[in-house]
């Protein structure tokens, strides 16, 4: 579904990704783990067009994404819930979700999808008319995921959904990610919480200073000696 080969990304003179190759198949949950600054977020930003790669290829369902504008990439069926959530704080929950469906014209389908998201995240239903900035961190994360789902993507990119959340909320979010996946959604998940991410994913990649260090089945990565030492606390 998504095929990345030899991707090079620079921020000015900083070489953030050095020849990264990643593959995501239909129906999978694939996770990218690694320390701060390893290039996980850069990779997601490159996929959704927010940074332009200098070299390498990015193919989504056979189409080359390199050089496309982010809003055109969304049209292809790729949706990105960015790091730090980036919800529209001055708008209501409902308006945020509505903006997630910005490209869609089927108002009936949009309404149904909003209902589906409220079923996934019942707390959002309670807060539908509330300003998104007044939500708790966990609720904002739910909203960011919900908003990303509103464009009815085929591939969902999630950047650090556990960032800054209480453990109980993190578990809730991960449970929902698995539910979304069971409904047929393909997910590319960037996480620092390697433990949870490897539990939720089918396959995983370990990024280190801009290169792929390991690539394997999630369960095998979780038992890999080096990965355990570096990312799972022994």
């Amino acid at each position, binding site marked *: 579904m998504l095929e990345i080969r030899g991707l090079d990304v620079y921020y000015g003179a900083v070489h953030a990704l050095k020849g990264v190759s990643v593959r995501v198949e239909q129906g999978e949950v694939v996770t990218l783990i690694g320390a701060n600054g390893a290039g996980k977020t850069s990779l997601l930003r490159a996929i959704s067009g927010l940074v332009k790669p200098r070299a390498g290829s990015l193919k989504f369902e056979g189409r080359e994404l390199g050089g496309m504008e*982010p809003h055109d990439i969304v049209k292809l069926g790729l949706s990105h819930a960015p790091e730090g959530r980036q919800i529209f704080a*001055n*708008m209501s929950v409902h308006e945020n979700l509505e*903006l997630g469906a*910005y490209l869609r014209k089927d108002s009936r389908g949009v309404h149904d999808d909003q209902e589906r998201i409220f079923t996934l995240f019942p707390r959002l239903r309670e807060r539908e008319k509330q*300003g998104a900035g007044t939500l708790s961190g966990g609720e904002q994360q739910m909203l960011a995921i919900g908003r990303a789902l509103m464009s009815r993507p085929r591939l969902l990119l999630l950047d650090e959904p556990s960032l800054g959340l209480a453990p109980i909320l993190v578990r809730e979010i991960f449970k929902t990610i698995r539910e979304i996946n069971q409904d047929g959604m393909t997910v590319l998940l960037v996480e620092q919480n390697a433990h949870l991410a490897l539990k939720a994913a089918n396959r995983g990649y370990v990024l280190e200073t801009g290169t792929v260090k390991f690539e394997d089945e999630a369960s095998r990565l979780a038992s890999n000696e080096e990965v355990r030492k570096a990312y799972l606390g022994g």
Partner: protein
Amino acid sequence: MKRLTPGTILAALAFAALLGADFYAPRLINPYVYQILWLCGINVILASSLNLVNGFTGQFSIGHAGFMALGGYVSAAIAVFAGHALGGVPAWLFLVSLLSGGLVAALAGLLVGLPSLRLRGDYLAIVTLGFGEIIRTLILNVDAVGGARGFTDIPILRLLLSGASEPTPSLSIVSCTAFLSVLIIYRMIHSPRGRAFVAVREDEVAAEALGIDTTRTKVTAFVVGAFFAGLAGGLFAHTTGYLNPSSFQFMKSIEIMVMVVLGGMGSLTGSVLAAVLLTVLPEALRAAQGYRMVLYSALLIVLMLARPQGMFGSTELRLPWARKGPGKP
């Protein structure tokens, strides 16, 4: 069919009252107050349209007077030259000239906006500042529209159905155009797709990631803003009957921006009220004579200190019984 809400009825009544202004206003008020009223109408259009760009979409344009000048001169030139050819200025010619003024300003907005709105931040401010000055200097050097002497004998939009021979400009047309302009901008912002304007202001990256073409959204806001500024310029030309390039200096753009900031970036109610307030205030302070502008500036400073977010912030004035509209949490 939309249900008749109290708000709709009230808006219709207000519109009817404005439309009837030509029948009762000249009888009730003296020409001086009358002139202030039509200036209020023009400033309402200018402030609301600039708010779409600076307030709702979060860009920073400081060349609104340039678009106003362009619209004013185009509208005036069409009415004067076509009027000569036709031997008079029929009502439809006013419509054509006013719309042309707006459209030429919108076209200029497109030409200025397309390259500069791709970039972020202060870039647009510099470009629009330059644009405003270029327009003014160009007009100064076109002799056909009077150059530095000013453009005189512009046909006046007369009172509706008055039959009077005195060249009193029509308050109905100015105020109804202002009303419709605000209504159109309001409907634009509160349409489902119009929410993109505010999304761009709030977080351009997030907006882009949701599939919003941010450049296109910004250019749209800018072009629509320019159109209404041009329209306001045309109304200004056909009410005063005289245009001078010095009326469209940089300070005019600043004046409009002050209205937007004072009313509240992102509040059309604020823009309307601030435009009226800042048109009336300098006149009301005439009693203070030499200290007039000192007092005016002092009042502005006090207002901004008391309410840095502007009179209305980013909220609209709502009728207590009206249901919560879109756009409000």
